[in-house]
């Protein structure tokens, strides 16, 4: 197990290096350089040539590329992501302020996705061909195809504007006002967790169907174990394996989806900041946020891989 974990950590480390290079190159892919782009797009028109040169110097744009990368990486490792090109705020501070908001919605969506999804999938498979199965299958197929932003708008219209049951935008920390926080986060969390629920349910259903046809399940039945033990200990435990590996994809989806959902519901998290910064061409902020989001994906994949290796020891020897 230790070798397996070490190997995975080394692999993730290599991926992290590649990721930082890519995030760094994002800014260099721009035509000209970011400062020039801001000037031409009009956002810095009131700047004098000296101020522009100073800004370029500050961003290190006058150095060779590899030195710029090393400098940027050294600062990033020590927690300094630079300043916003447009509004001059400290990016790391701003991210620190917004991270709990995104984490709140994202974590809930993830937990709801894996629990509700696996449960629905398992029930659907165990009642194969019955009306529950039909319902879950149809709902899951719709769930993976509904555009999240459109679903958000639909909910805003029905539950917010038409029925007036839920607030249509904003965010309140649960530690400030628990009730308001709950009401405000119902719609965003529902929109963000729909895809995880639907995709987990689909996979869990086919996984359970496959497991219940295995010889060891027939053995368990024939030696007279009761249904509860067979389902929980033999079927579900084995059926969950592929579901666990898929959670990496689900997490990527939640992180990507948060950008869209936070924009629709005007939730002041990292996603909304990213959309606004992209639209405003504030590329130092974009760089900082995508670095954090990509690292979150790499780290969570590492954790999922380790959990999987622990659940299914065969994987360690591959």
């Amino acid at each position: 197990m230790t070798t397996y974990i070490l190997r995975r950590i080394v692999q993730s480390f290599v991926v992290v290096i590649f990721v930082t290079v890519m995030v760094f190159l994002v800014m260099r892919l721009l035509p000209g350089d970011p400062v020039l782009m801001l000037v031409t797009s009009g956002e810095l028109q009131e700047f004098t040539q000296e101020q522009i040169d100073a800004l370029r110097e500050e961003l290190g744009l006058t150095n060779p590329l590899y030195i710029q990368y090393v400098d940027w990486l050294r600062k990033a490792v020590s927690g300094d992501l630079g300043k916003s090109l447009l509004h001059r705020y400290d990016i790391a501070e701003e991210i620190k302020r917004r991270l709990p908001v995104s984490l709140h919605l994202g974590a809930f969506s993830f937990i709801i996705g894996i629990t509700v999804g696996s449960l629905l999938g398992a029930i659907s498979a165990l009642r194969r061909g019955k009306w529950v199965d039909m319902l879950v299958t149809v709902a899951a197929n719709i769930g993976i195809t509904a555009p999240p932003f459109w679903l958000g708008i639909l909910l805003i219209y029905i539950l917010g504007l038409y029925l007036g049951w839920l607030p249509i935008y904003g965010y309140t920390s649960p530690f400030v006002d628990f009730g308001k926080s709950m009401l405000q986060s119902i719609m965003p969390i529902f929109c963000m967790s729909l895809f995880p629920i639907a995709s987990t349910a689909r996979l869990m259903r086919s996984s359970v169907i496959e497991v219940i046809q295995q010889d060891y399940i027939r053995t368990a039945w024939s030696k007279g174990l009761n249904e509860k033990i067979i389902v929980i200990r033999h079927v579900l435990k084995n059926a969950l394996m592929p579901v666990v590996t898929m959670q990496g994809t689900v997490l990527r989806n939640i992180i990507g989806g948060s950008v869209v959902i936070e924009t629709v519901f005007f939730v002041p998290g990292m996603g909304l900041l990213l959309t606004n910064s992209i639209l405003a061409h504030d590329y130092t902020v974009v760089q900082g946020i995508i670095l954090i989001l990509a690292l979150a994906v790499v780290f969570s994949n590492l954790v999922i891989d380790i959990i999987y290796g622990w659940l299914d020891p065969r994987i360690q020897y591959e």
Partner: protein
Amino acid sequence: MTQPVIPQTEEMPAEVYIQEALPRVNEFRRFVRVFFSRGVVRFGAAVIVLLVLTAILAPVIAPYDPYEQNVTNILQPVSREHLLGTDSLGRDTFSRIIYGTRYALLVGVVTVLIAAFIGSFFGIIAGYMGGWTQTIIMRLTDSVMAFPPILLALILAAIMGSGIKGVMIAITFALVPGYVRLMCGQVLSAKENEYVMAADAIGVSHFQIMFRHILPNCLSPLIVQITMVMGIAILTEATLSFLGVGIMPPAAAWGAMVHDGYRYLIRRPILSLAPGVAIMVVVFAFNMVGDGLRDALDPRLRGTL
């Protein structure tokens, strides 16, 4: 029906006779029968045929010019003249949704095909060569996959600049890693087959082995993946257009229409909701057809993609 008689002789083992005695299966007919056996798949196939026809015949079907503004006729409700009302510039929503099929199809088909081509190429090389080539290609793929696809497309589209070309390049790039990973895995198992060893033994070049012997044997999962991802590509384009970095107005792209209509949600919810339904139906159709293809092409893949 009587069982075929299997003579047991020393020269010919029994298995060979069993194989020859089995009735010949018409692969195409079997494919058609399995593919069309499910209602949702038939529905999906019908939607896609309808989508293609609508895109081609848009000028004939659409009652109005999708770009014709009429300031005296703005935000009209649903009526016989305007089946889905008119938008804030007096344009007919129904006609715009019909023309929107062109953008959806163009983005969905072109990006996925190019991404599948590039991704499969590198995936096959990685899987066949193994060693350092595989390590480098796969770690690079992992790194690109560390970015959620929608995020990657969003950033690339922003860099490329709005407009259909930028969006298509961005989506293509975001889709490539999926194909690299899929084909690498397929080739890793396919290259263990005896026909590969045989080809190698008679001196067939690596290039020929990869693309003439291994590739045709990995096509089923690739075709399934291509169909399913077309829906995802259309969804991604709509999302980008909704966020304001995709296909820009006045173009009649569905995502942009949802975005435009959002501002009039209280007065005319249909402006935002109708194009969303169009997106959903089309994505659903591609998913279902992908499901059907998977069942028909390779039953072993059921539930794995």
